[in-house]
């Protein structure tokens, strides 16, 4: 009986769990402590809606439209705190745990002992193509998780800087940044 109920529940609720990387509920609790919170949840339907309102005539918007064409979802959680130590490593561990599968691989891991900044970039490969991207950036007073599902080109993403209202960030080398990994 219980197996039947569980099966029916799984079938019925299956579409709700379409998000591949589940952002843990503990992140929502951090919002209460944060001074600034960004919470963006865009599933395929919302992306499609946004895409319809992106102009083909505007070069920037056309670029973004093409970029999000193959995406299934974008999920962003970003918290800024007044002081350090407001979040724990255990808050992000559930996210990392989901990446311990053969499909996901860490392509960048940056750690600054001086500033305490850490950043990791994971990509999901499907049939030799990138099928997902996850950014996990932690700073003493800031925590950011970006999960992008679907076919994404990180180079195309980087090219968005300076367009579509996104500021261009200077990525030129700096020296004396600290001891980085």
């Amino acid at each position, binding site marked *: 009986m219980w197996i039947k109920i569980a099966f029916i529940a799984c079938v019925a609720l299956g579409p709700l769990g379409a998000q591949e990387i589940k952002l843990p509920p503990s992140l929502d609790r951090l919002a209460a402590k944060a001074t600034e919170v960004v919470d963006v949840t865009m599933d395929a339907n919302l992306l499609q809606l946004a895409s319809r309102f992106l102009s083909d005539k505007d070069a920037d918007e056309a670029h973004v439209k093409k970029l999000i064409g193959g995406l299934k979802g974008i999920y962003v959680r970003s918290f800024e705190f007044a002081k350090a130590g407001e979040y724990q490593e255990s808050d992000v561990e559930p996210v990392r745990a989901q990446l311990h599968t053969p499909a996901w691989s860490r392509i960048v891991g940056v750690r600054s002992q001086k500033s305490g900044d850490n*950043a990791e970039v994971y990509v999901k490969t499907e049939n030799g193509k990138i099928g997902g991207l996850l950014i996990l950036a932690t700073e003493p007073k800031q925590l950011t998780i970006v999960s992008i599902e679907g076919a994404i080109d990180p180079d195309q993403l980087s090219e968005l800087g300076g367009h579509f209202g996104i500021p261009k960030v200077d990525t030129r080398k700096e*020296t004396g940044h600290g001891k980085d990994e």
Partner: protein
Amino acid sequence: MEDFERQLKYALARKEQPPSFEAKTFAAIAAERSGRGMFWRWEAVAASILIAAALWAQHERGAREQAAGEAAKAHLRVALNITVTELSKIQKTVNASQAAAGRPGEDE
């Protein structure tokens, strides 16, 4: 036979209509016209209301969709902004790390 002719003559004799006849006739015609006009007028009003309601609903639906689309676009901009900013920061750190290690980066 004479009696029959007399009856026929009486029946076919011209008679003056009563004075109220004309008034009654015109009143009846006016009442009939008025009733029919009212019916068409109400029908036209109802049709106008329906058309106006349909146009209003269509406009509202369009406005709601426009607002939802613009909101989705704004959310997308925020999400991409954070993504690009984080990627750029990571790239910057990687470049700095490479510079510190004495290895030339890709952008120089």
